[in-house]
């Protein structure tokens, strides 16, 4: 095994072996997160900057916990405190940060491509924590981890992703990585929320009818309806969306007995997901996904920062 990556920006650059190594490494960190002293000295002396230029609660807190449990020094940066508000360019900002001799930048930005731009500009390692509608690789990793933990494998599973595919950076990373690992992926949404060329993402099937696909799925991945991005009125009402594409209590009967429900959070209860389904312990792995977020981010920090010096 060789892990020859400096950055985690585009999950499509990661082979099946690379992804499995990340998931298996994440599993090793479980034991540390479940004991009284939830910290190891592994990354002592490494400085990581969390540069979140867009609001985020769970991704940012999950990264910060992962960094602290590996003994990194953490600098949180972004929001209204960024110098971009004062007109500074992105390049100048990251070059300033790198003058502090930092080792890694974890970046969230509303513009696609910002993590790549940073990686091209400075010498630090870069992790993409979500860029525009492009990618969100650590979200995909935590989804893969949760699915892998449930089924013991990913190859051959039938995964249905339901909702706003076209605005989703989660899909940008999740679909290609599911394909890398050999899953069968169907996207299910109203036509207005399906991207123009879904085959670019690598999906196997596109469906407009949840009820037709639901009985065949092992994993039902519900995307959040991003109310803030619905200005083009892609469907008549949230109520209609809920009736046609929401995972309701009634649809439970259509699902395979062993099928699981994933959601990247935060949930719009009563829109894409009924509370009955979101809180159903036999199906919902949503809280497992949140926990997996810490594990896979620890694995990414460990594998990207380790073993690089000569």
């Amino acid at each position, binding site marked *: *095994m060789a*892990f020859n990556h400096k950055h985690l920006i585009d999950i499509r650059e990661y082979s099946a*072996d690379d992804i499995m*190594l990340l998931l*298996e*490494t994440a*599993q*090793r960190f479980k*034991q*540390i997160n479940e*004991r009284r*002293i939830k*910290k*190891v*000295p*592994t*990354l002592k002396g490494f400085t990581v900057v969390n540069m979140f230029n867009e609001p985020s609660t769970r991704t940012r807190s999950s990264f910060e916990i992962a960094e602290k449990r*590996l003994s990194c020094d953490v600098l949180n940066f972004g929001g209204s405190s960024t110098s971009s508000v004062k007109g500074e360019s992105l390049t100048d900002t990251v070059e300033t940060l790198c003058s502090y001799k930092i080792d890694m930048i974890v970046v969230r930005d509303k513009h696609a491509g910002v993590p790549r731009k940073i990686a091209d500009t400075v010498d630090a390692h870069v992790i993409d924590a979500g860029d525009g509608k492009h990618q969100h690789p650590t979200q995909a990793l935590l989804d893969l981890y949760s699915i892998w933990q449930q089924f013991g494998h990913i190859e051959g599973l039938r995964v249905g992703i339901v909702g706003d595919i076209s605005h989703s950076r989660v899909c940008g990373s999740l679909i290609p990585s599911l394909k890398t690992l050999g899953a069968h992926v169907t996207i299910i949404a109203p036509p207005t929320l399906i991207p123009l060329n879904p085959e670019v993402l690598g999906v196997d099937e596109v469906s407009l009818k949840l009820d037709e696909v639901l009985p065949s799925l092992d994993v039902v991945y519900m995307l959040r309806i991003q109310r803030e991005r619905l200005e083009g009125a892609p469907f008549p009402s949230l109520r209609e969306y809920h009736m046609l594409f929401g995972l309701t209590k009634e649809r439970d009967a259509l699902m395979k007995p062993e099928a699981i429900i994933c959601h990247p959070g935060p949930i719009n209860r009563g829109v894409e997901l009924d509370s009955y389904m979101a809180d159903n312990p036999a199906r919902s792995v949503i809280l497992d996904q949140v926990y997996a977020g810490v594990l896979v981010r620890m694995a990414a920090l*460990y*594998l990207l920062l*380790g*073993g*690089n*010096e*000569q």
Partner: protein
Amino acid sequence: MVDISQAKSICMDASEVDRALTRIAHQILEANKGASDVALVGIVTRGDTLAMRLRDIIRDIEGIEVPLGKLDISFYRDDFATYISPELLNTDIPFDIDGLHVVLVDDVLYTGRTIRAALDALMDIGRPACVQLAVLADRGHRELPIRADYVGKNIPSSSSENVRLYLEEIDGITAMAIFDIAPGSRPGSAPLPQKGGER
């Protein structure tokens, strides 16, 4: 079955390993006045298998099954910046170590850096009454003030050599052997997994 024909010399064969472990088991029981407070924690890989063998020997002598755990020190290593282990290991200590006489078990004691890391890892898990160290071989060249309480055999070696333990349970053969370090390879006691093999 592992091929050890490349070895410069075999310093312990299977029966010597057995006899050394039996002696160490007796010494552990003598020093701790029985087995009631003793727990064995083996350092992966090889140390955990040796700890398992010691537990079986102690059970035969004393009739007590002492708690057995294994410790992965990857996250406590001092060479993380230059090297990360290709092996996927795990810590599994399914009992509370507080107040116990913990015997750390490893195959070869060399620089002492592994034991330094193991002590840190152990202290993050609990607060044992004491920690003792049992090793099958002590090859010298210490870089830290660390010594073993129980030693199977002292094996004088050069730092251009590797002392490796092979165990029946893992390698299909039991022997302690000395190799020359091939150019470009890392010193270290545990044989690394074959390329392309099980990760």
